[in-house]
């Protein structure tokens, strides 16, 4: 089957002062796949995701999303991308329904469309919880609401930055089930995580360390090629190889 690269990243770098947070990385994301971006805290995952969606200025290199240049056409790109940032990025004093109304509104949805989204979330989360302030609801629900807000207005490409941090294992599993549903609906998903056990959920993974890509491929192939039993062992080996080179 022919794969289409929906995002192309070429020699991408980000420099803060003299420090390279991301150093000449290149990779592609295929349409309809889940790409896992793995690495410890500070590896450069969030910096990369922020450069791809135009939140950080690119020091050097290029990013093309659906053939559009991030440096020049970010306004058009915003129209078909969704972003869920770390720590869920919801307004703690607003209720879930108000957050959905707000994010829908600033995404340019009509009142009718916002109402439709609110009704959709009411099917999965009890209304009494949706009417509580975000600061008063458990992390698992916050995570669901945050994902919901980033799906307005129905983006093709979804960026999820550490979406499972601070969430218990059951909610993490449930969350990945939702991500699979999105993949089935034809969405392309880039998800960053430092939880190595989540790597197997992705179609392909990229391991990043000190701003450089140290491994990339399908999780099972990577394990097989390197003769490793677990992602943790693979990660340790990749990091050791990188540091010794």
């Amino acid at each position, binding site marked *: 089957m022919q794969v289409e690269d929906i995002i192309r990243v070429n020699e991408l770098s980000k420099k803060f002062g003299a420090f390279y947070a991301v150093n000449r990385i290149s990779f592609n994301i295929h349409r309809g796949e889940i790409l896992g971006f793995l690495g410890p805290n500070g590896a450069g995952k969030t910096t990369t995701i*922020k450069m791809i*969606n*135009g*939140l*950080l*200025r690119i020091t050097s290199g290029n990013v093309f999303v659906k053939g559009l240049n991030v440096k020049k056409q970010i306004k058009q790109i*915003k*129209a078909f*991308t969704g*972003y869920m*940032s*770390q*720590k869920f*990025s*919801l*307004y*703690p*004093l*607003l209720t879930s329904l*108000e957050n959905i*109304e*707000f*994010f*829908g*509104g*600033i*995404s*340019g949805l009509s009142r009718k469309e916002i109402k439709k989204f609110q009704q959709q979330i009411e099917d999965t989360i009890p209304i009494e919880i949706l009417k509580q*302030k975000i600061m008063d609801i458990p992390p698992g629900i916050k995570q669901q609401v945050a994902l919901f*807000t980033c799906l307005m207005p129905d983006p093709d490409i979804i960026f999820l930055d550490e979406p499972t941090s601070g969430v218990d294992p059951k909610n993490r599993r449930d969350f990945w089930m939702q991500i699979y549903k999105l993949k089935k609906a034809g969405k392309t998903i880039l998800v960053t995580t430092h939880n190595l056990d989540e790597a197997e959920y992705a179609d392909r993974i990229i391991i990043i360390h000190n701003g450089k890509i140290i491994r990339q491929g399908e999780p099972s192939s990577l394990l097989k090629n390197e003769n490793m039993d677990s992602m943790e062992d693979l990660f340790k080996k990749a990091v050791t190889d990188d540091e010794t080179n």
Partner: protein
Amino acid sequence: MRIFYLLKKELIEIFRQKEMLVIMFIAPILQTIILGYVVTTDVHNIPVEVINLSKNKAAYRIANRINRSDLFDVKKITNQPGDHLKTLKQGKAKSIIILRDSYDKKRKPLAYPEIQILMDGIDSNTSVIAAGYFNGVARQYILEDMRKKGFELPLESQTLIRFNPNLKSINYMGPGIVALLLTIISMFLTSITLVREKEQQTMDTLLISRLTPMEIYLGKSLPMALLGLIEMGIGILVVILVFGIPLRGSLLYLFLAAVIFLFAILSYALLISTLCSSQQQALFFSWFSMVTFLLLAGLFTPVENIPKGLHWVADINPLRYLIKIIREIFLKGNGIEYFYKDLLILGAITVTVLSLSLLNFKRLISK
């Protein structure tokens, strides 16, 4: 339309913080009342000791007038000299009036006593005013007494005071306090608004949305401007109802000046917000700026008293112009033809600060 959702979100966030509501709507009333009573240049109840060493009737009458006046709190009247310096050092009195017999060159007693005023000069302002009061009491007595005795005074000046005939300092301070309140609330609340978005990591979501920088900017400023105008309305009501300060000019002009001023101060507060990385930093920065604005605004001391080297700071201080305009509208009933130049300067400051602030905001979002 997108901006409507941002405005709504901002207002919900403000009104959900009950402690904030108290600060916003109760504090201005209390502050205006407290400041109105406390921030005054009127001097009352000056603690004084009168030492009357004269046997002259006039000296006795002058001492009596001082005793009866509301301006002075006479602690002691005596005809025994004492250790005056000790009295001042102990703080028992802030001034000592000594009345002595006076003589001409031929040692012939004169009709009126010699008056010596000893003042505690630590509070220089009160000392100068109090000395003026003592002189006034003595002079008034002497003039009246001379008239009674049929003496024609060679020259007598008559003072006619317009706009604030009773020279009540609250009339001067009250409108200024309204401007001060407008600055405090707007600056403090606005300076933390963008920083809070950064701290709760919602800034990225705003930036990645379809909101333009200008929409984010207006969405943050307009609710604060609205609250600022409500605050000002409360302040105006308090100074009129509680202190009886007359509003002789147009309320419309007052709010027009306030709107222009608000955009200058809100732009400045947003500039602070873009420069700081935490709410504490933003609050400290705002506090420092506010004190500087306040000291160079002509609220407590005339702008003319500011050292020449600092005049340029006063010239770019928007609070200075608002205070001047508010006082003119309140007390003189001036129309726009009297303060349009100040309004234009205020407008120019607003455009400059707004542009700087927007530029910095755009720099922040594309770093």
